[in-house]
């Protein structure tokens, strides 16, 4: 006994705290184009290394290089840039609207625009996403009307969800965007169930589940991987590693596992890790995983390595837990600027066109905002009715709810 040193309790800490100099020297970033592209029917065993690397297409000079390049046409790339710029402009206006008291709450995507915008373009109509609250790019890139998103954020009389849901908890069956829940990770396992159903019915549609780095610690993440693996469900399981879960750095959820993607290996899932700020890489990897699922080859786990540039939400102040300049030091840069530079390099875009596009997009967003505000904001103008509060709990209103609605005087 006397020879045994006392046990030490380990609590992981991020490299740097406020006041310190941002340091990402521990993030190993492979050269763009250096990671191989296996066939979609690759045996998961044979591609274990991909869970520890980062698939990248755009290099430092903005060139698209390597085996994952070339999944998109020029027009698609320009469109992708517009989607990301739209999401960013939308975020900025809604953030401001929250500060102006027009709504209670908002969550931005700053820095993560490529992930959801590019992924959406790899899906087909009818496929179903099970998103978190930070994938509005799935809606933007699928042409969901911005006014509807704003109506939801404002909880106004035209809110498609009748004022029942917190801002940004959108729902659109038509656009393959499952109803967002405040409870983290729940949708990850539901995505697997939806995919199982599609296979049971011999359908051709696939599902995509979404989760953040922090929420991978929830039991639902584990259950989703077990069920996806057991039933070889046609699902793409996406982990958006933006390094932060509110104030908690990703090491707290990841623990000793080298990467989040590596979690898939123990379940026998092919696991890929991709540069989440590289629109081309995200699309190429998404396309690979989607094709794999649709070809009945089973699920794929994908980790998108990115950085949450903005605050967690309008209720959060990141300067309390991380250096203010950390996002500027993030080695994978900014997804909008990277795609913009790529397009300029190829003569498909220019600074002037970019400025012009920015102005046009801002104009579109402001026009949508004005229209939405005509239907009311949280504290002013048109509101959903109090009757709406009692509807939709069940398909048919049971007697006790009818009595309560009567008591409420509606």
């Amino acid at each position: 006994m006397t020879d045994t040193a006392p046990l030490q309790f380990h609590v992981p800490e991020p490299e740097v705290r406020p006041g310190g100099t941002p340091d990402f020297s521990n993030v190993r970033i492979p050269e763009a184009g250096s990671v191989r592209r296996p066939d979609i029917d690759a045996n998961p065993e044979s591609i274990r290394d991909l869970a520890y690397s980062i698939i990248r297409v755009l290099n430092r000079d903005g060139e698209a290089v390597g085996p994952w390049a070339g999944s998109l046409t020029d027009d698609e790339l320009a469109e992708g840039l517009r989607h990301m710029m739209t999401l960013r402009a939308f975020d900025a206006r809604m953030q401001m609207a929250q500060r102006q008291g027009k709504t209670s709450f908002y969550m931005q995507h700053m820095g993560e625009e490529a992930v959801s915008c590019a992924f959406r373009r790899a899906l087909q109509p009818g496929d179903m996403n099970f998103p978190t609250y930070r994938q509005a790019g799935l809606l933007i890139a699928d042409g969901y009307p911005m006014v509807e998103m704003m109506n939801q954020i404002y909880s106004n009389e035209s809110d498609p969800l009748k004022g029942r849901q917190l801002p940004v908890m959108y729902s659109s069956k038509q656009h393959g965007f499952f109803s967002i829940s405040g409870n983290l990770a729940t949708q990850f396992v539901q995505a697997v169930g939806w995919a199982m159903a599609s296979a049971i019915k011999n359908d051709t549609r696939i599902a995509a589940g979404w989760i953040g780095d922090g929420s991978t610690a929830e039991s639902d993440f584990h259950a989703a991987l077990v069920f996806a693996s057991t039933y070889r469900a046609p699902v793409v399981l996406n982990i958006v590693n933006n390094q932060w879960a509110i104030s908690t750095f990703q090491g707290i959820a990841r623990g000793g596992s080298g990467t989040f993607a590596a979690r898939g290996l123990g379940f026998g899932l092919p696991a890929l890790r991709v540069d989440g700020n590289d629109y081309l890489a995200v699309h190429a990897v998404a396309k690979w995983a989607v094709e794999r699922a649709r070809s009945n080859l089973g699920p794929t786990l994908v980790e998108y390595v990115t950085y949450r540039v903005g605050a967690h939400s309008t209720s959060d102040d990141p300067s309390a837990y991380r250096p203010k300049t950390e996002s500027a030091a993030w080695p994978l840069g900014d997804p909008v600027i990277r795609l913009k530079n790529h397009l300029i390099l190829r003569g498909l875009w220019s600074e002037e066109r970019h400025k012009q596009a920015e102005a046009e997009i801002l104009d579109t967003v402001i026009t949508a905002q004005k229209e939405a505000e005509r239907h009311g904001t949280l504290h002013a103008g048109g509101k959903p009715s109090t009757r709406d509060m009692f509807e939709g709990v069940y398909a048919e209103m049971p007697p006790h709810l009818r009595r309560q609605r009567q008591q409420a005087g509606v």
Partner: protein
Amino acid sequence: MPRMTMIEAIRGAMDVSMERDANVVVFGEDVGYFGGVFRCTQGLQQKYGKSRCFDAPISELGIVGTAIGMATYGLRPCVEIQFADYMYPAYDQIVSEAARLRYRSNGEFTCPLVVRMPTGGGIFGGQTHSQSPEALFTHVSGLKTVVPSNPYDAKGLLIAAIEDPDPVIFLEPKRLYNGPFDGHHDRPVTPWSKHELGEVPEGHYTVPLGKAVIRRKGAAITILAYGTMVYVAEAAVAETGIDAEIIDLRTLLPLDLETIVASVKKTGRCVVIHEATLTSGFGAELAALVQENCFFHLEAPIIRVAGWDTPYPHAQEWDYFPGPARLGRALVDAMEA
């Protein structure tokens, strides 16, 4: 008409539903090849194939979570949690997801799901094979909660639950699987083949959700019961000779308040009985509703007879289980009050 056990009736309900609707799928732990630890799904995999009836990993959260995803796709999953005592890992999925989906998406996504779980004590099941967690479901808006007490109701209610457009928690009193049980553990158990409610029609029929049934007409006092307690009530009435009206609630939510109120207004007295623990149990809701709706007709305080506020013990099974003696005392007290 054939006589069946509750197990056969429940199996029959799934069989009928799977036959009629190709979207009905059945899964859970040991549910597929083996046919369930209580035999409730025996033969279904053989008849309908592995894509309609299959074994699941031991993950209640995974079972309910994937079932919700399937329901939103358009299937009608009827899943099994092996014991109600083990539903807690799935509770978040049931409460935060299944129950809220229609409401939060304004009807865009719905969840026609049935979660079956064997419930209740009286079988020396100890702490984790005896619980009655119904109050944890009735407190959740968006869920329907059903507890059958006999084979006829079990089949009709389960078919209705599977056809219902909303999530239904279907609690099966496992003590009643093979025969009615009145709490007299020292007497031989009657099998369902000797009980008229063991008569179950072949084929499709439903017992509507949200409707109670009066099991015994009476004028002196109303007993509100469900599950195994229906037979405890019958025994207590026989032993005390009190002319009680016994209402089998069958569905706890939505509750058939009309039948309850009409009965208590007639009798002027009410005893509520359930196996679940007393504090914040479903009996509290029943007592409150009776008090609110029948105050001027009540001639005695409403008495609740329930499991004690302890975890379900093993050796003390019959000191815990609310049997006919305890209910009988409550009936006498209520009559003398």
